[in-house]
């Protein structure tokens, strides 16, 4: 490498030149963008290796279990950098999302030592952690001998970081002082509004300001856009996944909860309050008037596909679902993003989040080497690589949201950056951590289906739901 290039890269690593300036400078020196990127990755690996012995586990090998996802794709694209940095060989199995968690559960429940680390959702660790299938990663994070001084754990967004830590007590606050870090957040989704700007213009409406406005705007879009376009896409299948996106985000914005936790740590249903009933009524009305016809079958895929194909005018779901639909679809380029605050009295949006995380199997044969992979995969360096060159959005690292190239990339997604920054401070998991999470939330979704189908009035339905949940909690010794 020539001295001029070396100097420029060193200046970047010292923080004297920003990323854009670096790549521009390297370009001016006659280096193609790909070569400049490779040089930069090499220099970053060298810089990471400067203060920490990344070669301590050289010659070892690890195996990962990954979900087929853009986050995994971005990591695989950068994996050579890890191998060069550490000398650790990494192999991986990628499974489609539809069967991914079956594979994880089968591997962990059979104490399989085949996989050292795996992708997981934070909710899943509420089962895996207490079962003894995953490790408390605080053991490594807090050990300076095993974690690089440049790792910057505090740079991970607080709400997201805490959402992956639980003390194992039913109802225990996420991220409490005694919480165990069951997984490391990797990439996450905030639930907000993605809308079709062209259709909004046609109907003469603005992005909704609050829940009442959302109900009204969705109805007007259904009436005025034409071509059988419906106003708002939300999930509706009989699954916990119906509750966690837009629904819970809006619900939490009104200060409502899923469960009460008493002073003695006993849990009870909290969804039959007067405020909750009022919220449910509006939500049900919105779906009845402006949702998809076969709403009760809607999952992530249908909500996203309809938005991309121009069958719906907006969605209240994961921001990255809208992000993915803004490329390669009929409506690509027409989509815009909006941080949504359901409660007019609230100061900011409070989205519930889904976090794709990395966890360490308790059956891993070499946990220290596995930790090397986990800290590299969740490092700022890899996050910037993934976010700027691939679709590693939303990164959980604050540093990436300050990276000029990433912010520039987001300009193709109108309102995305603003939506993110408005929502991120209030973004966290809004559910109460407890072992019956999947059962109780699925029942909540089933009740919602009955309300939308007018099989049961909202008030009565919520009372019945609360009664059933209380009974199950008591039977499980939690209530």
């Amino acid at each position: 490498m020539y001295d001029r290039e070396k100097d420029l890269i060193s200046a970047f690593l010292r923080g004297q030149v920003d990323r854009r300036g670096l790549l521009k400078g390297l370009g001016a020196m006659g280096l193609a963008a790909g070569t400049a990127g490779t040089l930069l990755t090499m220099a970053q690996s060298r810089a990471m290796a400067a203060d920490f012995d990344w070669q301590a586990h050289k010659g070892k090998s690890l195996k990962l279990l990954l979900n087929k996802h853009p986050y995994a794709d971005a990591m695989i694209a950068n994996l050579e950098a890890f191998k060069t940095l550490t000398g650790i060989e990494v192999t991986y199995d990628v499974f489609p999302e539809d069967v991914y968690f079956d594979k994880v559960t089968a591997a962990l429940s059979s104490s399989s030592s085949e996989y050292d680390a795996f992708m997981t959702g934070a909710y899943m660790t509420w089962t895996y952690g207490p079962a003894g299938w995953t490790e408390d990663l605080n053991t490594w994070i807090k050990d300076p001998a095993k974690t690089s001084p440049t790792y910057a754990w505090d740079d991970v967004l607080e709400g997201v970081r805490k959402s992956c830590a639980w003390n194992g007590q039913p109802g225990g606050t996420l991220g409490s002082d005694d919480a165990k870090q069951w997984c490391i957040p990797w990439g996450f989704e905030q639930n907000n509004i993605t809308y079709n700007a062209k259709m909004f213009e046609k109907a003469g409406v603005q992005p909704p300001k609050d829940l009442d406005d959302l109900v009204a705007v969705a109805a007007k879009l259904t009436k005025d856009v034409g071509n059988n376009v419906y106003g708002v896409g939300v999930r509706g299948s009989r699954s916990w996944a119906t509750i966690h996106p837009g629904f819970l985000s809006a619900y939490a914005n009104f200060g409502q909860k899923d469960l009460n936790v008493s002073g003695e740590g006993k849990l009870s249903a909290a969804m039959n309050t007067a405020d909750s009933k009022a919220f449910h009524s509006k939500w049900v009305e919105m779906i009845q008037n402006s949702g998809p016809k076969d709403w009760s079958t809607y999952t992530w895929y249908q909500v996203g596909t309809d938005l991309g194909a121009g069958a719906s005018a907006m969605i209240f779901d994961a921001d990255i679902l809208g992000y993915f639909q803004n490329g390669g679809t009929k409506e690509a380029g027409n989509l815009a993003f909006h941080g949504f605050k359901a409660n007019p009295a609230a100061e900011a949006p409070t989205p519930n989040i889904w976090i794709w995380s990395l966890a360490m199997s308790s059956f891993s044969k070499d946990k220290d080497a596995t930790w090397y992979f986990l800290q590299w995969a969740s490092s700022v360096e890899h996050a910037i690589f993934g976010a700027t060159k691939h679709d590693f959005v939303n990164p959980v690292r604050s540093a990436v949201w300050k990276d000029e190239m990433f912010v520039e990339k987001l300009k193709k997604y109108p309102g995305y950056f603003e939506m993110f920054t408005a929502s991120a401070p209030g973004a966290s998991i809004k559910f109460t951590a407890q072992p019956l999470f999947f059962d109780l939330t699925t029942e909540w979704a089933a009740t919602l289906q009955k309300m939308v189908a007018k099989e049961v009035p909202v008030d009565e339905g919520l009372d019945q739901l609360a009664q059933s949940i209380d009974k199950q909690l008591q039977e499980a010794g939690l209530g």
Partner: protein
Amino acid sequence: MEHSSPIERVLRAVALTLVVLFFMFPIFWIVLMSFQTNETILRIPPSVVFEPTLSNYKALLSGRLETAAGTLELNFLRTLWNSIFLSVTSVAVSLLLGVPAAYAFARHKFRGSEDIAFTLLSFRFAPPLLVLLPLTIYFQQIGLANTYIGLIWVYQLICLPLILWIVRGYFEDISADIEYAYRIGGHSWFATFRKIALPLAGPGIAAAGLLAFIFAWNNFVFALVLASADKQPVTVGALAFVTASGIQYGQIAAAIVLSITPTLALALYAQRYLVEGLSLGAVKG
């Protein structure tokens, strides 16, 4: 001979056409989808008029799919090969073990024969996951986890009982007198089995083999739990087109067309044996 009027014949033809259309329409629609891009498939309203493209098949055969969210690596052909290998070898092993066993159960009544036969049938009763989780632990201990041999062994849970019980019924339907006559001629029981029983039971064996092949081909959960990504069958591989960044409907359709082709070809070829074998083996006189 019965004579039908022209009106009857026309009505019958119309009815048959309607039935064929009704049953064939999903396959016809899937074939059409396999020649379209995602954008044309998702048009509102859907239309049968489109500019055909081979991009879906090209992506499957080359193993790389370019999407808006980046390049998707596909292992579809590998999973197709895994399905062919696992199904063919499993059925072959089942035939090798199951046909002589079926003959023994049909011709030689011995102590505990019914119990053994029923135990083999009971393999089909247990929910697969209930069997698979303990099996995973054993397989890890004896080094069979994540191996083709281990999978073929587990596939016997699907194929062996099916072949054994269908072929047994068929052997029982063949008159034993023919075999006795051959034995009187000085031939061994093995020669009798090979020269008389096997040829007579041919259609039944073919039908049982074909059915076992279809069941093995459609299996999903065995390889998912017991093996790595490189040993997955096409039933798991086809799900790779359902990703967080969208569903690749065109590739799914092309994958369906490619994955049903071997079974369809085999079924069409052996259709005669299938119907004859199943009906003769199932009805006892």
